[in-house]
């Protein structure tokens, strides 16, 4: 083997190649395709029609806004339920918290569709009608581990010295929480929001199953369009959603620069 080739093969740089190839093929190329489809019509000619269609259709915008609303409600519920759980986890001793974290993560091992179908079965069994309530329940149930884990992480890494310092300076337990613990765990909450909010905007399977297809989310609309071979319009909707998520994440990363510990899965 000539020397140059062996250097190339065994140098560290060479190892990057498979990943670059993978990323190019399965991430960059599809994104370019989305952009391409979004700005063309069925014949392949350049057009803004797909976007103007979207903004012209009050139903599409309504679904978009409704999806964001559902995502916000889900995220808020996840915070309200997940934060205390993360707090309890971070307070319990090591062995017990490991088990508890495991219990929270365990449902994630089951496929999301199976879990959602099981939720339907449960609602049927309890004779609770499916619909918006079931949808939110299903979303929270599916995404809450993504909220708990990053918050748990930041809480657990938090120096207990800060809590003691606050107590020492005269803060009652609730003041310690509001003035020290909560602000210091903000990076974890932000990570959690990213982990929950973004995927909830684009879900469609949960909505379909838990509302018997009565409630449409934005993800559902995209999926329907693609399924019905309306690739260009579907791509435009995807692009709108991508931009929206992109904007929220830029908004979030601003915050993260100050807190050196994001502490999440992100």
């Amino acid at each position, binding site marked *: 083997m000539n020397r140059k080739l062996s250097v190339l093969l065994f140098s560290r740089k060479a190892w990057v190649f498979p990943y670059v190839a993978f990323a190019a093929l399965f991430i960059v190329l599809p994104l370019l395709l989305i952009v391409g489809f979004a700005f063309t019509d069925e014949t392949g000619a350049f057009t803004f029609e797909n976007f103007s269609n979207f903004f012209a259709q009050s139903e599409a915008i309504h679904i978009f806004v409704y999806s964001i609303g559902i995502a916000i409600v889900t995220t808020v519920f996840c915070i309200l339920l997940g934060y205390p759980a993360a707090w309890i986890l971070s307070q319990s001793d090591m062995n017990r918290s490991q088990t508890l974290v495991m219990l929270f993560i365990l449902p994630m091992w089951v496929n999301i569709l199976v879990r959602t179908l099981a939720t339907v079965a449960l609602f049927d069994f309890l004779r609770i009608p499916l619909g918006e309530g079931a949808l939110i329940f299903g979303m929270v149930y599916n995404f809450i581990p993504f909220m708990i884990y990053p918050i748990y992480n930041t809480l657990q890494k938090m*120096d207990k*010295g*800060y809590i*003691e*310092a*606050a*107590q*020492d*300076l*005269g*803060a*009652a337990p609730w*003041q310690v929480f509001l*003035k*020290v613990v909560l*602000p*210091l765990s*903000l990076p974890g909450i932000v990570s959690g929001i990213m982990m929950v909010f973004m995927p909830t905007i684009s879900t469609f399977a949960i909505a379909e199953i838990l509302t018997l297809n009565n409630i449409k989310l934005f993800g559902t609309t995209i999926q329907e369009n693609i399924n019905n071979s309306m690739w260009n319009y579907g791509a435009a909707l995807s692009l709108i959603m991508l931009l929206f998520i992109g904007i929220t994440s830029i908004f979030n990363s601003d915050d993260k620069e100050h807190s050196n510990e994001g502490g999440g899965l992100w």
Partner: protein
Amino acid sequence: MQTENYIIEINQITKVFGEKTVLDDISLKIKRGEFVTILGPSGCGKTTLLRLIAGFHAPTAGNISINGEDITLVPPHKRPVNTVFQRYALFPHLNVYDNIAFGLKLKKLTKQQIDRKIKASLRMVGMIDYEDRDVDSLSGGQQQRVAIARAIVNEPEMLLLDEPLAALDLKMRKDMQLELKEMHKNLGITFVYVTHDQEEALILSDTVVVMSEGKIQQIGSPTDIYNEPINAFVANFIGDSNLFDGLMLRDKQVRFCGVDFECVDEGFGEGVPVDVVVRPEDLYIFPTSDAAQLTGTVQSCLFKGVHYEMTVLYNDYEILVQDYHPYQPGQEVGLIIKPADIHIMRKERMANVFAGKIVDDRHVEFLGRTFECPAISGVEAGTTVRVEVPFNGITLQANEEDGTLVGEVQSILYKGDHYHLNVLSDWDEQVYVDTNDVWDNGDRVGIRVVGEKIKILTP
């Protein structure tokens, strides 16, 4: 009433963490306005004691009162004390101003009051223009100052300081020591200061509390502690010292290093083993002559800035001497110790004593193991007895497997010609060993007991 002078009274506090007794029956009274230092090696329980005062732990037994009021179970936020933490614990999400304002805002003071107090406290610690700074952008010394400002701004009756200078470099530490002393004078409040640095303790304090292994060894003024150490531990821990095993022959007469010396201590009894301490600066060193009490050879000579520090070998004893005049290694020198400079201390123990149980006429069980011992007669198997093992009846092995049980070296005293070690066995009992071998604190060692030296004390 006498009690009114005391701001805090600690009564027979015991604190147990899991299996470990960290504080063992501690009683301490601190006068209002005093600068008290709690001094001891790491792991002696000094920080735990401070945390009990601050309220972060509840004692297992005993009580604490501040201003005559029992506060044993009062949560930390209701105690009239503030703490400067070892690692500062400044809130990273708040700037300097808001860190200091934290306590004041909780007290619902007006903005103007808060502002005035913060300005005053920043002036006190010399950090006037730093209000808007991020705490992460400050150096260690500056963070320390902010931490102090954050505590004193609340005008506590007592300020607790947990090794506040430990993380600073030497120069910075010296400056801060002076400033702390100055601050104490200006504020007029009680300072309780925890440190492992004996020099710091001597410089700063009105009263030093020396702790070791969860117990208070000695309470006294810095000069008392230095000049009249109560036992070998204190003598060794505070300042440089020569420590010897001695024998009190009679009043005012003590033998150590194989020589009889005149001393000023009385009342120990006749023929009683004692610990003897001689400070290196208290030895007179001169070219050998008939006047010498001890004649030895200089082994090493180090220049220490102001004085020279020399080791003199006399028979098998290494003696540390400090003098302004150097004597070169190899030189024969004479030494004289004045009677008043010989400090005699009661030995805490003469030998190891363990609770044991007779197994058969040649074996006894103690420290969780069975040992062969000299023949026992007239004692039934199963009888509980006291077992005495002299310090030289125990040997330490570098290889843990070579010992009957394993232990960790906890403290070392140099006695001139041998080391006196305190080893915590895995059976959780202290084993005291005399040895010529050099060990380090924290060494894991195998412990062996010399069978012939075991003495059974029948109940």
